[in-house]
């Protein structure tokens, strides 16, 4: 049997999923800011135990690679790279903005970058219309308005912008985008995306 482990820690959440081929058989996502690194491994053990499988059954690990929290973008990636180094598990790394929605949807993704800025990207049917970037919130609000009128969903926690949103997918996002993402060939040079070098 072909199992995939789906992991994302890039913002405030710790999200873990397990898929059998393309069928999601385990999913758990909760707010864990500043506790992600302490909870990640125990939560994975919990997931594998409850499914009565072991790491040996995992053939592929799919992770969010950022942008997001400074520490967050490094946690799932470090775990995946370590695992991939000591086993033959393959890695797929996907934008953490992309995985806020499903690959078959049209959506604007948002993550609070603080200092009155946001990480933003726009995806449509798996294609990237606006590549992941960091923009001032005034500009972000203009983009949201434009695409909301076109019927795009708004994904991510947008309470800091005082606007409503359509939730966030993360685990379904990891699963659906994994199908259109290549396996990383060069694990050693795989790096998280932080996007901030602006000070």
């Amino acid at each position, binding site marked *: 049997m072909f199992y995939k482990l789906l992991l994302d820690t890039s913002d405030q959440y710790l999200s873990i999923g397990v898929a059998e081929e393309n069928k999601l058989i385990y999913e758990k996502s909760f707010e864990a800011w500043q506790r992600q690194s302490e909870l990640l491994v125990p939560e994975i053990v919990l997931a594998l135990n409850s499914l009565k499988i072991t790491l040996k059954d995992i053939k592929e690990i799919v992770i969010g690679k950022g942008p997001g*929290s400074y520490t967050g973008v490094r946690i799932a990636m470090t775990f995946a790279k370590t695992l991939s180094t000591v086993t033959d598990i393959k890695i797929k790394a996907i934008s953490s903005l992309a995985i806020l929605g499903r690959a078959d949807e049209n959506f604007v993704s948002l993550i609070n970058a*603080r*200092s*009155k800025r946001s990480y933003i990207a726009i995806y449509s049917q798996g294609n990237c219309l606006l590549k992941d970037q960091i923009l001032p919130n005034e500009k972000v609000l203009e983009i949201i308005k434009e695409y909301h009128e076109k019927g795009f969903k708004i994904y991510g926690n947008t309470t800091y912008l005082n606007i409503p949103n359509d939730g966030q997918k993360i685990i379904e996002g990891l699963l659906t985008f994994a199908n259109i993402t290549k396996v990383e060939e060069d694990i050693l040079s795989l790096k998280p995306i*932080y996007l901030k*070098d602006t000070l």
Partner: protein
Amino acid sequence: MEETLHLKSADETLNLASSLIKYLPIPSIITLNGNLGAGKTIFAKGLAKGLNIKQDVTSPTFNILKCYFDGNVPFYHIDAYRLEDSQNKDIGLEEVIDGNGICVIEWPNYIKEIIFDDLNIDIQIISLNERVFTFKSENKKYEQVFTYLEGLKNVL
């Protein structure tokens, strides 16, 4: 908004900071300006006391950031002194500044790009024990602090 207070000892600084906690919203960002020895760290200790933090609060000059989670709300203490001219400012400090608790920042000018909506406190040294505190903020969320300080001035 602006308010000035004349304090006569380190104990008065400690007590003032401690009593301010009641009037601070979450998140609060407090920036402290003042020369070495002005009492910036004493002020931070006072805030921690007001939050019922039991750990000893010491200057994070070496560490840059210290986090305290044993009080009523998370307390973050930043000393940006070592970030002057640094190429390594991008270390995620904005996540605790614009975060879920009270963040106090010494030497804020070195990271001013990531500080918004702060309550600024300038400490002037008058003599060995005396200090003049000037509180300033443009943000309405600190209104209660200024109302409290105004009342305090009439008592002192």
